[in-house]
Every structure is written in structure tokens, then in C-alpha cells.
């Protein structure tokens, strides 16, 4: 097994951990954290793809590397937006929860136009 494959398998396992955390953890902030872990595992898969395709004197194929850089920035933007939503929810209701019971608003104003 090459080092690249090892990191790739590590990425696969991290995707598994992240997915589990995203599905099972009830706290939104922990879900966001799990999403980031999942994302970093996905990025590592790009890393293996790049490393394996090393050629022309380069340590890896630059195309997947560039894609990861793009994706890291997008993931950060997503995290920032999700955290802002969680904090706003806290401001409105004093809680931060995704559970179905009413977070604060009364049921009668659902479906506001």
C-alpha cells in the first residue's frame, strides 16, 4: 500500500465518521462540525487522486488540488452561513435546536405570506 492509498482510506473513514455525526447528533453546531469533518474526508479523496497521478516532475496532478482549494473556500462559506443561522435562532428563541417541537413562534403564523 502506498502512502497515498493510506491517506485515501483515512479520508473514506472520515467521511463515515462525519456522516454518522451529521445524521445522529441533534445539536446543530455539532452537525456543522460533522459536516466539516465529512468535507475534509472528501478533500482527502481528491488528494489521493492527485498524488497517484503524479507526472511531469510534479508531486501530484494540480487539477484536483485546485478543485480542493475551491471546495475548501465553499465549505468555509457554508459553515459561516450555517453558524450565523444557529446564532440567529438562539437570539430569537433562546435555544438552538432543529427538533420539530415549536421553537418559539406560535403555530398559527405558519405559512405567512
Amino acid at each position, binding site marked *: 500500500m502506498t502512502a497515498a492509498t493510506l491517506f485515501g482510506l483515512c479520508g473514506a473513514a472520515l*467521511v463515515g465518521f462525519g*456522516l454518522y455525526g*451529521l445524521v445522529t447528533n441533534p445539536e*446543530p453546531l455539532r*452537525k*456543522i462540525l460533522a*459536516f466539516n469533518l*465529512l*468535507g475534509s474526508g*472528501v478533500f482527502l*479523496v*481528491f488528494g*489521493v*487522486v492527485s498524488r*497517484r*497521478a503524479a507526472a511531469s516532475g510534479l508531486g501530484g*496532478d494540480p*487539477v*484536483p488540488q485546485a*478543485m480542493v482549494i*475551491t*471546495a475548501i473556500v*465553499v*465549505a468555509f*462559506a*457554508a459553515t459561516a*452561513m*450555517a453558524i450565523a*443561522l*444557529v446564532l*440567529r*435562532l438562539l437570539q*430569537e*428563541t433562546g435555544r438552538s*435546536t*432543529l427538533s420539530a417541537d*415549536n*421553537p*418559539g*413562534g406560535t403555530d398559527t*403564523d*405558519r*405559512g*405567512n*405570506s
Partner: protein
Amino acid sequence: MPDANVLPDATTTDGALLVLAIVLPAAGVLLSFVLGGRYAERIASVLLPSGLFLATIIFADVWQSGHPLIYIVGDWKPPLGIALRADGLSAAMMVAMAIVICAVAIFAHADFGTRPGSVEARAPFAFWILLMAIWGAMNMVFLGGDLFTLYVAIELLTFAAVPLVCLDGRAETLQAALRYLLFALLGSILYLVGTALLYGSYATLDIVLLSRQVRMEPATLVAATLMTIGLFAKTALFPLHLWLPPAHAGAPAAASAVLSAVVVKGSFFIVVRLWFDVMPGMLGAAGAQLFGALGAAAIVFGSVVALQQQRLKLLIAYSTVAQIGYLFLMFPLALDTAAQLQGGGALTGGMLQAISHATAKAAMFMAAGLIYATLGHDRIAELGGAARALPMTIFAFALGGVSLIGLPPSGGFLAKWLLLEAAVATGQWWWAIVMLAGGLFTSGYMFIVLSSAVAPSSEPLKLRVAVPRYQEAAALALALTSLLLGLVALGPVDILLVGRPDSMMVGPR
């Protein structure tokens, strides 16, 4: 597939139109961001109609030449660079979405309009920029010829769509937006890992180049599966639909319309690209039946839950869950005897369903918004008198329903007719039963709403506001578009097959 002659890898005449379709919305977003809320609506009111005009030119061009438009960005051909391609599917979807977005823009003037000289306000500033961003992201989805570019496009779509859900800032819409965001992020990250695996196997993500090289092997199968699951989550296909009803029902009416009509079609379109264009031979009979089964489950589940709703906007949102199901019936119906997905009647039917649902559903959400604004509530049981107060709106709502049920001459009728025809031709009668049952369910919930709306009100109706006539007209125009969409059977319906490798069909020539 050996079809090197189908799509040349060079910029075609008029290919620059495709660049314009992406640059215009991007410029609109950037400009509005700097100039601020006072100008955002004015910028949108110039750019959105230009977008419709542009889409129409691209449509006419593709239809007349019978060939796709291509633009090679940066003069770097794939696999190194990125190509933009407008085939028949792209052109038709671009026009349809531009029509819906323009109608939404007219409708939204009442809620998000800005008077000259007023100070910048939060909701209008955000709304107009997000609307232009959705337009641009959809164009990118339709034109992008590279799977990673499509990833960036669906992320654009997510970031434009999520804030629309909670524009009014109520706690439950914030919660709905957060749930939507988490589902959407999971969807895009699963899609992204698929692109990594595909690149690892073929060193290209260009749709045409991939379609020539793709082969049955473990990495490709894993990639396709994960990408599909991710896109299903973003499209809200049963059982990954949980985020949709609260998000679509809670948003302001103009936003609900664009979310339900337009945004979910973006990820759906990429599913079609993936299975019909990138790997038409990979889905196989079992996979196609599974897609169909999920679609059928969505139709039954969405309709049954819609029937139980007490609130109009939630009913319409659950109806979206059901109507999305129809889109996936085309997969088993498009499979030919060699287990290849073929662009024929089933594909045409499926895409027509997407377009007719877009126009009908946007009209219905607008109508529901007007009903809410007028009556101050949207409780279905208490809609009595609404038809007297808002005849044009209720009529628009009913016409939208006609298209959803699939009565002639609506777009929904033609779509379902083509799908039924394919079901008969391929001997898959069970999908025909599902479609007919879905039509009955739809008639059921339309009947509940309309019978309540035309009933006389028990007590004198207190109208909260008089809604502007142009808002009603926008809803009605979309509903009429949906109703008359069936007439495209007489005209350019074949455009949907332009540029398909498996089709000998070219335009009217």
C-alpha cells in the same frame, strides 16, 4: 459511445451568447451589491427580461440549426479547460425558468419593491440579488459542460436559495432554512466526492469526454451512486424530502414560488445529465426501476399527506413533493431493450413535466400568497368567499391545478400522455397505474381547496388589503402558460432532443 461526430469541441457561431447568459446575472449580483438596495430592483428589472430575451434567442438558434451551441471558455478545450454547451434540454429549460423568474419578479414588486430615494432595506436588497443569483446559477446548471463546474453551480444555487427561506426572520423559518442548508450541504458534498472518484478514473470531468470513456468499474459505480444520492437530497426526492415542506411553505410567497418551481429543478437537471448523457448505459434495469419506485413512493406519499393538510401553503408544498416523483418515472420508461437510457418520448415527457410543474406551481404559490395577504390566513377550511374576493387569483390557482392533474390541453397532460405512451410501449403498465392514481389524488386535493374557496363565506369577509392587479395577472399568466404548454406538441417540442447522441432528430429542417 462512438459518437465523435455529434458534439464538436469548438466554439460554435453564436456560442458567445452562452457566456452572456452567465456574465449578465453575475454582473447584476456584483453591481447590486455595491450600489445597494435602492438600485437592486432596478438592475434586476433590466437584467431579468434581458435574460428571458437571451434565452429565447438561444432557444431559437438551437431549434433552427438543430445543433447545440458550444463555447470553449478561455480557449482551453476540455479536458484541460471548460466547455459551455446548450443542447435542446438546456435551451428549453433556460426559457422556461426565465419565464418563471420574470413573472416572480413582477409579482415580487409589491412585497420587495423599492421607492426611489428610500433608504436601503434588508429584505428587498437580499431578495433581488438572490433572485438574480438563482437565475445565473440555473443558467450555469443548464450550460455547464463539466461536472465540477456543475458542483460550483449547485453551490451557487444553495447559497442563493437558503436565505430566501428565512427572509422574514421568524424562528420557524430560520429553523427550516437551517435544516434545508444542512440537507443541501450533505447533498453537494456527496456529489463532490463522486467527481473526485470520476476524475481519478478518467482524468476529465467534461460530460462529452466522460461519456466516451466511462466504463463499468467499482470507482465509477460508487461515484455515480453517491452523486445520485446527493442530488436526490437536493431535489427532495422521497425519502429525502423532509426539509422541503417547511422551507417552501414558510418562505414569502415570491420566494416559495421560485424555490418550488425553479430551484429543485437544478439538481434534478444534473441527475438527467449524469444518467442520460454521462453514463446512459450504466443505470440498468434494476437501477431504473429503483428510481421509478422512489418516484412512485413520492407521488403516493406526497399526495396523501397533501390531502391531510389544513393550510394551503403546506398543501402546495406537499404537492411539490408528489410532483417531483413524476420526474423520476421517466428513468424506467426511457430504458431501451439494450438497457441504455434513450432520449425519446419518455425524456421529452419528463422534461415537459418539469417545465409544466414549474409554471403551474409558481402560479399556485403566488395565488396562495395573495389569498393569505387578503384573508390574513391560509386555513383551507376557512377559505369561503375567497373566489368572490379574488376571482382572478382563484382562477389562476385552478388552472395550475388543471396542469398538475394533467387535463388537456395543459403541459401536464402532454407530459403524462408521453410518459403513459412510453409505459404502454415498453409494457410497464405499473407506472401507468401510479400516474393515474397520482392524477386522482391531485384532483382530490384540488377539489378540497376549490370547493372551499368557491363556497360562500359564513360571515362577512374582512379583507385585510386589496392586492394589486398586476400580482394577480402574474399568477394568471404563469397558470395560462402551463395550461397552453400542451400546444407545444404542435411546435417546438422536438427541440428537447437536439444534441442527443442517440437521436437522429434535428430541428425543423
